[in-house]
């Protein structure tokens, strides 16, 4: 048995015997096969092989179907909603922080300096730029007010002292100050 030299048509013969060719392609292939003895032989062989291959066992449909569970629609997943809500919350929170930081920056550049003169204080609290931690903006006065629950218990004199001390504090570090040098990066043990 010899092969037809038209490889493109020969490649379509399995689909021809399985009746899977588009009508226009089928007409073209049929026309070729009518005039090609090699392809006729191959089609004959393919039909015989197909019949032989398809004669394998017949499955028991009833047994298979009985093992198939009834359809259950996929459960509505609330996990996705939770994730979306969490993302939204983070986005809103992040935006709020950004807005607050912008406002703080604007305040530093403008009116706040008039309220809080930039004189260097003597209190350790007034040395934020020397802190061996991350150079986050510090707000010592609000922390004092809000973070100390006993502040209401101070008498007038103590409050006056506290206010006087606050007057000496630098309200905010200078925005132009390069503070990257303030970062203290711990050296790995044994390298110093």
């Amino acid at each position, binding site marked *: 048995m010899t092969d037809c030299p038209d490889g493109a048509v020969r490649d379509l013969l*399995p689909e021809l*015997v399985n009746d899977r060719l588009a009508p226009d392609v089928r007409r073209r292939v049929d026309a070729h096969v009518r005039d090609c003895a090699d392809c006729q032989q191959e089609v004959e062989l393919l039909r015989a092989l197909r019949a032989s*291959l398809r004669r394998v*066992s*017949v499955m*028991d449909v009833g047994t298979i179907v009985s093992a198939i569970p009834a359809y259950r629609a996929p459960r509505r997943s609330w996990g996705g909603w939770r994730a979306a809500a969490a993302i939204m919350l983070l986005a809103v929170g992040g935006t709020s922080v950004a807005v607050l930081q912008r406002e703080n920056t604007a305040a530093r550049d403008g009116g706040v300096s008039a309220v809080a003169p930039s004189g260097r204080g003597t209190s350790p609290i007034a040395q934020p730029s020397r802190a061996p931690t991350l150079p986050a903006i510090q707000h010592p006065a609000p922390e004092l007010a809000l973070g100390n629950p006993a502040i209401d218990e101070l008498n007038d004199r103590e409050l006056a002292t506290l206010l006087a001390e606050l007057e000496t504090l630098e309200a905010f570090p200078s925005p132009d100050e390069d503070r990257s040098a303030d970062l203290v990066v711990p050296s790995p043990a044994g390298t110093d």
Partner: protein
Amino acid sequence: MTDVADRADSRADQGTDDELIRRWKSGEQRAATLLVGRHADSVARFVTSLGVRDDVEDVVQDTFVRAFASIDGFRGESRLRTWLFTIARRLVLDARRSERWRGEQVEVQDGDARTDFDPLDAMVADEAERRMHGAVARLTPTQRQVFGLRVGEGMSYREIADAVGTTEGAARVHYHNAMRAIKELLDD
């Protein structure tokens, strides 16, 4: 086993695979019967071509159970039959990997020149057909899978590549090598 004649329903009357899936999801159990009847034998032939001997029916049943259980995962990007073949192949490979079937199944590799699998020998009376079965059985496992899908099912190379886990080009080469080998064996 049932008789082929039991499934003489006209395919046109049954509806497309997608329609049957929709009907089954809406509670029509008969739609599942029609789908299984339409594809079970093809899946069985494919499983057989993978070298499974004694557990073909179990694998086919597992394939359908798995497919129907995850039917929402079928996006219709391929034919349902191709998707079923993919599931069946995965089941067979998983079973072999888990060694559950070790000793019962023959681990077939492409390097094997032939397999001793031919369940129809006893049933095939015709000498010419027996020779054809012998020729197909002598193909390498991958050639036999590709050849079975191409000639037995009429699948495109793209569909074969998806089902067998290879490339379109490789499927084409396997088919033509298989065809050449069969012709040589039959010409001897």
